[in-house]
């Protein structure tokens, strides 16, 4: 089975940061964006989107870990942290291109999005349905559909078949 990961649609994302609150509530039993595995980014107000672990096929975080504390779970691709090995050096935080490895203030070890056993609460509660849990194939499918729809609509408007 191909891995699924959390995808954020910047067209729909309003930058409300509710996903951060939901994640910290589920994982850390309280509200604090700094404890969230998913993070919202807003640039110049216009660009809004949320970023969580992509579950890379060749995760740079795993490769970077000097203590071999990180492994990629075979079944779903989730990054597992061996807390007895992790020293909290945060080399993996630097290695991940998406800033998806999170170092928690009150914990020694790092964490990443674990998809909440396949039912991520942030996806369920996103008010604008900007978040979804998808395979790369599904991401491609919806993008292709959008692209074709747009092209055909433009053609219809300009009178071409």
């Amino acid at each position, binding site marked *: 089975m191909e891995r699924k990961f959390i995808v954020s649609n910047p067209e729909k994302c309003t930058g409300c940061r509710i996903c951060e*609150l939901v994640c910290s509530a589920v994982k850390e039993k*309280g509200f*604090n964006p700094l404890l969230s595995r998913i993070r919202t980014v807003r640039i*110049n*107000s216009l660009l809004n989107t949320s970023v969580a672990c992509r579950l890379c096929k060749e995760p740079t975080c795993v490769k970077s870990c000097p203590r071999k504390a990180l492994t990629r779970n075979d079944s779903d691709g989730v990054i597992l942290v061996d807390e007895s090995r992790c020293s909290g050096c945060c080399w993996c935080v630097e290695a991940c291109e998406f800033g998806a490895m999170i170092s928690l203030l009150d914990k020694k070890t790092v964490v990443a999005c674990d998809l909440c056993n396949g039912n991520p*609460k942030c996806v369920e509660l996103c008010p604008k349905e900007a978040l979804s849990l998808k395979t790369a194939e599904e991401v491609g499918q919806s993008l292709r559909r959008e692209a074709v729809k747009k092209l055909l609509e433009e053609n219809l408007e300009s009178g071409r078949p």
Partner: protein
Amino acid sequence: MLGYAGRILFVDLAQKKSRTKNLKENFCTKYVGGNGFAIQLLHENTKPKIDPLGPENVLVFAVGPFAGTMVPTSGKYIVQAKSPLTNLMGESVSSGMWGQNLKRAGYDATVILGRAESPIYLFIDDETIQFREAKDLWGEDALQTGQLIQEQIGDENVSVASIGPAGEQLVKFANITNDTYRQAGRTGMGAVMGSKNLKAVAVRGSKKIEVHDLDRLMEVCGHLYKECQEKATEGYRTFGTPQSISVHNYLAALPTRNWQQATFELAENLSGEFLKSHYYVKTIACSGCPIACDHLSMVKGQPDEKVASVEFETIYALGTECGIGHFPVIMDAAILCDKLGIDTISAGVVVGWAMECYEKGLLSKNDTDGIELNFGNSEALLQIIRKIAYREGLGNLLAEGVKNASRKLGKGSEHFAMHNKGLELPGYDVRGLKACALGFMTSTRGGCHLRSSMYDFDAKGKVDRFRADKELGKIVKEREDLWSVMDSLILCKFIRSVFGTYDKFAELYTLVTGIETKPEDMQMAGERIYNLEKAYNVQEGWTKKDDYPPPRVMEDPIPDGAAKGSLVTQDEFETMLDAYYEARGWSKNGIPTRQKLLDLGLGDFAKGRGSP
């Protein structure tokens, strides 16, 4: 006492010292948070009749028990002080991330005392309070200041509330900007900051906010998020607040050219629909809000492609009020006001007044430094805004607000100075919205649409909008109390059609804090908070005449549109006002009675202040 951070931070700018005080549970249940905390702290930490711009005034920032949790639209803060614009109680609410950061830093409120010797900014970083040099930031615009401080600290999670040059120059309607696009706009809180040599307050909080029943709260909020996507909020989500332009124009409730008309011939070009199809680029939300009403605009194809967040009130004040119907001009003026740090509503109304003075010959070209200050003159609008912020020439007079400016100029110009208690009126022509007329005038902070939002009743036909009915007294009283609770919890008024009842507030309050609370407790708290505000105003010399509308509302009928011929006569207004005082249990002169204050648990005030 979960939900609350549990502490108040006191900062003395002169001594460069800070201390904290733990909150007691009875303080929390009595005053709820936000508005309730801030007005009580203002009472406790100031003496009567102080100079609002003197070091003895305090600046109180407060958040509510829901701030930083997932309760929808709860990420707000309130700022209160004695207002330099009204000389009464001042207050303003804003959103963004600032309030949540204050809560996470471990404080439900901060009381800023005294005056710094030279320009500084405050950095509240959890337990560490830093007094940082701001000489280089003095003179910077409000938006740039926030970015520069973020860069200086090197963390974009830092939230900054800052003033622009207008706050430094003590312009009496200077505002406070936070998180770039959000403003605590009204009653001149930015001038109070400026008077304290305080350029900004930066906050970073890293603490977790815990609540009583997390699982149930998630379930309830999940449902509320869904309801926020339904019919009740459709207008906000589809067009944002500019949706109201067409509605007001249709009702003849769109004040135009300083309230000389109530419809605008160019309203269509400023309508929510028009803006959406011509200037809209992106919808964004305040932190923690599932509705997302903020429709960002841009004039595409321009070399600099400026982005602006322009709300209904700004379109009224800088647009119709000044006779301007070209949206890009309003955008430019709004951006200018935001950068300089002045409230767009007050700025627009004072400029509109000056334009009428100019057209009537009460101000000459000599007075305006050569500016042709006619209605509709875009360049003049931009020039005069700049002059206000730096108090140059005529700007120095206008910077005092329309009440003071019209008193100084005289020549009959007070007749059309559109304010109540010195606060410039928002964009609702109350001459044909009589419930709204009463609500605007009884407001403790002066002419304001957010202390009871009575237009809901007029515009939606819940009452006959042309009838000054006695019943309105009670309706306004009840709305003000309810709104006081919203401003204390603090919730955005835009969620009122999704949930806006004491039942729901009490349910959420109990889930968050663990304090068993009944709807009646909430209702009583609302009334208590409103009376506290009133008691402050009475202490500062408020009298019944301060609750009256400006003469134009009572003497000049609306000349156009669906409300043509309508006005609120003095008799009509007094009928409503007397009924309101009666519903409040106040004296005939509108002063809280000793018994009322005792009933509300405000014994301290019953002893000395407030009693008739």
